[in-house]
């Protein structure tokens, strides 16, 4: 509070005025307009929510770091174990690297397929097609569904259980595939006859397709809004110069959309790291299908209570997540200046 008073509260407009010389006088002028009561009120308006936010989000983040250096398991004594959890995570715990691979795969699949697909749909729908709103509504509907619902809906497509999954029932029902050979779309086996570790299990590929089902519509809407804000004069100019639609998009529209493109890449990276629900629901606990986020929870909260070990995985996820978060914030900060 004392800091607040000493700085004074002037309307934000002045920081943007850039009139360096006139500033101090102006500041003082407006400063006097705020009563002590107003200043206290403003401090409370920010202070109370900030306090709760810092405790629940940032202090718990720090607590994860502290817990990762312990062997706490909820019952019995706990000790400081230094980097033991991390050593175990990196060396003897086999599912950590599987999860890292799956997260990487998620990122590559989204950056290489789902996000470009969303952009492509946005570009198609931006052409004022008849019935365009209907396409847009259909493509976006999966985004508004709870992942719990998405999980059930896709389980009813992919489940290998006879009578439960549509795809296998169709394959065996029409006689295309013998019931014994019906693929387990949510299984751990690799589709190409047991290729070694780096190749993803079939279940992971299915999960990625389900995740894309939601991600494509999301990106489409973000990008469509960006496209609508592009100055039509630019396109007209390109058309007059004889550019076709493809050339116009890649050489005129896409470069103008640079800020949106960056946002979309960051959103994609963050989504790939935050992914949890779909895997949690569809993997049914199969280890080869896990992500870092689900490993944290299964180690520390659901199946066992390895608080220390789970926290070490959480810290790893935190450090990786900070890369896109900082990249994003740096952009925001730059546009503030």
């Amino acid at each position: 509070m004392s800091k607040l008073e000493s700085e004074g509260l002037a309307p934000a407009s002045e920081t943007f005025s850039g009139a360096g010389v006139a500033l101090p006088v102006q500041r003082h002028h407006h400063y006097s307009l705020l009563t002590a009561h107003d200043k206290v009120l403003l401090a409370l308006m920010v202070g109370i929510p900030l306090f709760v936010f810092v405790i629940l989000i940032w202090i718990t983040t720090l607590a994860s770091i502290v817990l990762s250096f312990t062997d706490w398991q909820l019952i019995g004594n706990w000790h400081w174990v230094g980097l033991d959890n991390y050593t175990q995570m990196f060396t003897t715990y086999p599912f950590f690297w599987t999860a890292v691979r799956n997260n990487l795969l998620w990122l590559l699949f989204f950056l290489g397929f789902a996000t470009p697909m969303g952009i492509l749909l946005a570009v198609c729908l931006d052409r004022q097609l008849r019935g365009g709103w209907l396409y847009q509504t259909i493509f976006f509907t999966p985004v508004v569904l709870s992942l719990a619902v998405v999980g059930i809906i896709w389980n009813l497509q992919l489940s290998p259980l006879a009578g439960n999954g549509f795809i296998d029932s169709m394959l065996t029902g029409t006689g295309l595939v013998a019931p014994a050979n019906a693929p387990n779309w949510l299984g751990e086996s690799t589709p190409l006859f047991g290729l070694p570790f780096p190749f993803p299990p079939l279940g992971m590929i299915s999960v990625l397709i389900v995740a894309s089902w939601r991600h494509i519509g999301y990106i489409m809407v973000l990008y469509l809004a960006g496209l609508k804000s592009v100055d039509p004069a630019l396109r007209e100019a390109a058309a007059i110069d004889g550019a076709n639609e493809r050339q116009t998009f890649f050489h005129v529209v896409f470069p103008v959309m640079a800020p949106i493109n960056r946002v979309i890449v960051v959103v994609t990276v963050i989504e790939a790291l935050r992914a949890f629900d779909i895997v949690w629901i569809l993997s049914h606990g199969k280890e080869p299908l896990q992500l870092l986020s689900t490993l944290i929870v299964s180690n520390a909260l659901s199946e066992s209570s390895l608080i220390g070990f789970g926290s070490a995985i959480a810290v790893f996820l935190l450090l990786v997540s900070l890369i896109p978060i900082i990249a994003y914030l740096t952009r925001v900060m730059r546009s503030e200046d």
Partner: protein
Amino acid sequence: MTATTFAGRRTMAHTARRRASRIGLHVFLSVLAFIFAWPLIYVLYLSFRHYGEIVLNLNGPFSLPDNGLSSLSLDNYTYLINNADILSYFWNTVVITVPAVILTLFISSMVAFAISKYSWKFNLLVLMIFTAGNLLPPQVIVIPLVRLFYAIPLFPPLSDNGLLYDQTIGVILIHVTFQTGFCVFVLSNYMKTLPKELNEAAMMDGAGVWTIYSKVILPLCTPAVAALAVLESTWIYNDFFWSLFLFQSGPKRPITAALNNLNGTYFVDPTQLAALSVMAAIPTVLIYLLLQRFFVRGLTLGAAKG
């Protein structure tokens, strides 16, 4: 003369090409739209069928109703409503979502107002703290958060077990906190676009901070607040991560978490599961169809800056 004909022919060829490309585009989009809609169409169809019919029929879910349309019914829905306590789970969702959305918008609009309308050394830092926190994967903080909720004492009527853990109020609290991060970001960007003269004029008229917030700035933010209300209602309704790990007991959980529990069990009638997921999907799909504009605006407001 010849030049005009030539140009005319060129335009005709051009139009024909354009029309062909339009048709191609429609074919592409229709096929894709069908693939997108298929799982939804199927689950809706399945929800009206009878398990017995699917099992007896060798083709399983692929089969058509045997007795024509007569075998389709609302039986699964009536069964679930009468036997599975579905309405109480829906009520749990309402009890979490409504207060959480209102509190989130109230709190974040105050924070956004204070940091966007008054210059203060820490404005940017405060914005960073909220925005960055909102972008963190929730799994990074969930372990200590569960312990923290166990450690915070809370007394009746706020809590029936003396803790913040396993309480509706605890789940509301974490929703409000997490979502405030996003809403502060969106609303402060929005408020910065409002003309600064409004603030100054109100101050000259002797209006206090609270009056400026509630009578001048907040009414002008109605478009952004409405968009966020739609978006946040959907997100909080859809959540099941927090309710899975911050509730211990089943009866307090919202519909989404209850749904997930059922999904884990293997011996569930798929037609009932389908009906259940249709019921859980209806509120958000309805909100989306009715308020599509708000939805899209809310999402784009969040990404506009960058």
